[in-house]
């Protein structure tokens, strides 16, 4: 394929004092695909995303976004949804929207407002008063209301009730197009696998598996979740 590589990772390594979070990870991401980054706790999924988002600095290796090295500028191409509660507590939903609008050129304010209302969250709610389901929906809406090249969602279904999960998956698929890359990390493999194009299994910082979801189903006659359980049964 001759498509411009939006995200190219080469021998990415991230070491901490007492552990290696990522080890020689080499991956090429094609536009138009939804990637599932799967693995148990501590496998390096979050670290990977935070390095690409510019929140952590790699120990060695290269990350190229639109053929540029990581810098504050590449943050404009990446829309990251952390799994943690990172929103300013004292703000209301509408204040957070305004913040995003002011800080990001590609933020679609009206689109975000419509989406927020569609998922039954009012813009006048205070962040501290939101339930975990509402926070989950809000974070996803924020990330997907940006018109970025790369979206990374870290556990978007965490803390979200079963009914809201379908809504979130809906928003994800509707925000995707053939020019964008989506990377979704999750434990809840069974719920998310039907929207995944490619799956990446990460174990202790190492890529164990990288493949097309449908091909894997055909070859192994297993769901991605089944395969996940097999690969990680010892984890």
């Amino acid at each position, binding site marked *: 394929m001759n498509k411009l590589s939006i995200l190219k990772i080469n021998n990415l390594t991230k070491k901490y004092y007492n552990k290696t979070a990522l080890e020689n990870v080499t991956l090429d991401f094609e536009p138009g695909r939804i990637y599932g980054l799967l693995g148990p706790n501590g496998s390096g999924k979050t670290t990977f995303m935070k390095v690409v988002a510019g929140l952590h600095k790699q120990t060695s290796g290269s990350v190229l976004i639109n053929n540029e090295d990581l810098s504050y500028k590449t943050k404009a191409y990446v829309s990251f949804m952390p799994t943690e509660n990172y929103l300013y507590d004292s703000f209301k939903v509408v204040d957070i929207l305004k913040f995003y609008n002011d800080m990001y050129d590609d933020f679609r304010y009206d689109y975000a407002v419509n989406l927020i209302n569609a998922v039954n969250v009012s813009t006048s709610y205070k962040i501290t008063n939101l339930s975990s389901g509402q926070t989950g929906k809000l974070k996803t809406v924020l990330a997907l209301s940006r018109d970025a090249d790369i979206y990374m969602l870290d556990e978007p279904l965490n803390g979200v009730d079963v009914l809201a999960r379908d809504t979130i998956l809906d928003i994800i698929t509707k925000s995707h197009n053939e020019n964008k890359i989506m990377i979704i990390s999750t434990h809840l493999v069974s719920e998310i696998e*039907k929207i995944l194009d490619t799956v990446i299994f990460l174990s202790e910082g190492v890529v164990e598996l990288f493949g097309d979801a*449908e091909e894997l189903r055909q070859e192994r006659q297993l769901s991605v979740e089944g395969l996940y359980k097999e690969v990680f049964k010892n984890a």
Partner: protein
Amino acid sequence: MREGDRLEFNNNVPIYLQVIERIKQDIVSGKLKPGEKMPSSREYSNELGINFNTVARVYKELEMEEIVFTKRGLGTFITESDMQIENLRYTMAKERITAFIDGMKQLGYTIKDMVEFIETENNHTEGNE
């Protein structure tokens, strides 16, 4: 749109195969009319709650089997060929019959038994109508 479009998928089998199966079924049962326009990849993927790449693959496969055809700029359409649809009906029916026969044989039924069973069942159903 239509009810049941959001049915649960079996994650153990390639999803695109399941969508293909469903479309073939709808064509044969008449739910999808010959020449009817299918939704775009994007629209259909939104309806089904899956990835648009999967739907694109579905359409590609169906086009290779000549069950749908694409008109550039206009979209994807169900074939208008009655013969094609008949072939499809036959192929699908044959699959089901073969599976049925195999299954019943495993229970120890002969073909004659199977035919009798079917006729009895049919009489019961007609009697109840």
